[in-house]
């Protein structure tokens, strides 16, 4: 079963060197234990472009589609047999990146 672990950000600053080291260690552990699928950090909401390709010509709009106090700054996709395992991994990920995370299942 695949789970998306989203990293919740509330202040616009990237991870510190210590946090990066901890994240790398956590990623290595995910890979060693067979839970790793994919992970990545993503740009701040100000780097977003909204695209509407439903019409005859695609429309591009600068900025996020909704302004929020918290946003997604990175994510893991993990493989876990059930939610208990996913929650444990997510807790370790939260500790490593020093931020809150949210877990959701892939359908």
């Amino acid at each position, binding site marked *: 079963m695949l789970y998306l672990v989203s990293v919740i950000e509330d202040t616009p600053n990237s991870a510190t060197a210590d946090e990066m080291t901890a994240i790398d260690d956590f990623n290595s552990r995910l890979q060693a234990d067979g839970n790793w699928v994919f992970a990545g950090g993503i740009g701040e909401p100000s780097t977003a472009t909204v695209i509407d390709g439903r019409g005859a010509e695609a429309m591009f709009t600068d900025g996020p589609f909704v302004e929020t106090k918290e946003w997604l700054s990175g994510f893991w996709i993990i493989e876990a*047999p*059930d*939610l*208990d395992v996913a*929650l444990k991994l997510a807790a370790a990920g939260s500790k490593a990146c020093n931020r809150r995370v949210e877990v959701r*299942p892939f*359908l």
Partner: protein
Amino acid sequence: MSPLDVGEAITRAHHEEWARVVATLTRQFGDLDVAEEAAAEAFATAVERWPADGVPPNPGGWLTTTARRKALDRIRRDNKRGDKQKQAQMKYDDPSDSLGAVDDERLRLIFTCCHPALALEARVALTLRMLGGLTVPEIARAFLVQEATMGQRITRAKAKIKTTRIPYRVPSADDLPGRVSGVLAVLYLVFNEGYLASGPDSDPVRHDLTAEAIRLARLLRAQMPENGEVAGLLALMLLTEARRTARVSANGELVTLDEQDRGSWDAALVAEGHRLVRERLATGQTPGRYQILAAINAVHTSARDVRDTDWSQVVALYDQLFRLDPSPIVALNRAVAIAELDGPNVALTIVDGLQGALVDYHAYFVARADILRRLGRGEESRAAYDRAIALAGNTAETAYLTRRRDELG
């Protein structure tokens, strides 16, 4: 067998077998929804058939078999409609499973229903439905919410269990203490809602809820006899329940511990509670919160007369509880015991210091009003009673507080 006896047999089977049937089917079909519906259908079939055919020799086995057949019927129906998701459930089915190890099944069910990924109110509702066998309207009434809202709450919780794959198993040893305390919190909440029923129109004590919480705690205790907090919570509930009938007067007024007719306490429940407390003391292990609360209740229920209460023991236990949980509510309860041991003056100093943290807590003003009354400070006491009455939600308690206030003269 008379219709009355059959009715009794069905009620008893519902009490004893509902959770087993739901638990067994959940494992076999891997789906709470299927299990719940099939269990409900099996009991409906029993209501139809038992009066004519007689009560089967093994009601639990009959109900499980019937429920399994209902579940398979439903899955076949769903398959005809081409529901892919339901087809997948067929592989869970293993009709060779008998009633073996079912108690363990119910334990799994408790941990699934009380999973920390579910909101507390959803855990409570799910536990009462799946393990207690209460209907959605009954649960809705107990918590004063609309039936549709409660139905939705349960449906959403079941969907989350399924979609996120909350496992159906007893947690591993290192997760167990945390998960057990989550289960106990649910049971204690159910018990307290029964014991201190809120709402201007509800009965002061909801015996159905207190009884259900005790029943589930007994179930947990039978499965985890070594767990001190499980024993502690069961003892706490038993010693509280023992005083239930003495706690509300004939005219619906709360009777406080010091004014209760101690002869009307349920001696069997008191004895059982005391036995559990003694058993925990004998282990020599450091007690948790529920064990300490049970011990406090054991001290109270050991006194034949309120004047025989060993208040120094009560205060010592509250000291121990405060070290574990230094919350203002524990400090308040400790102050009430201090008032008995060291007098109302000492207690008032403590209570004064708690006002900021407990400004909306009715029990704070109840304690304060009583202490001020004993100090002869009538006007201040009256003001505290007014505030307590405004904040209290329990009908019997409001009646008691109103009388107390009016007696101030």
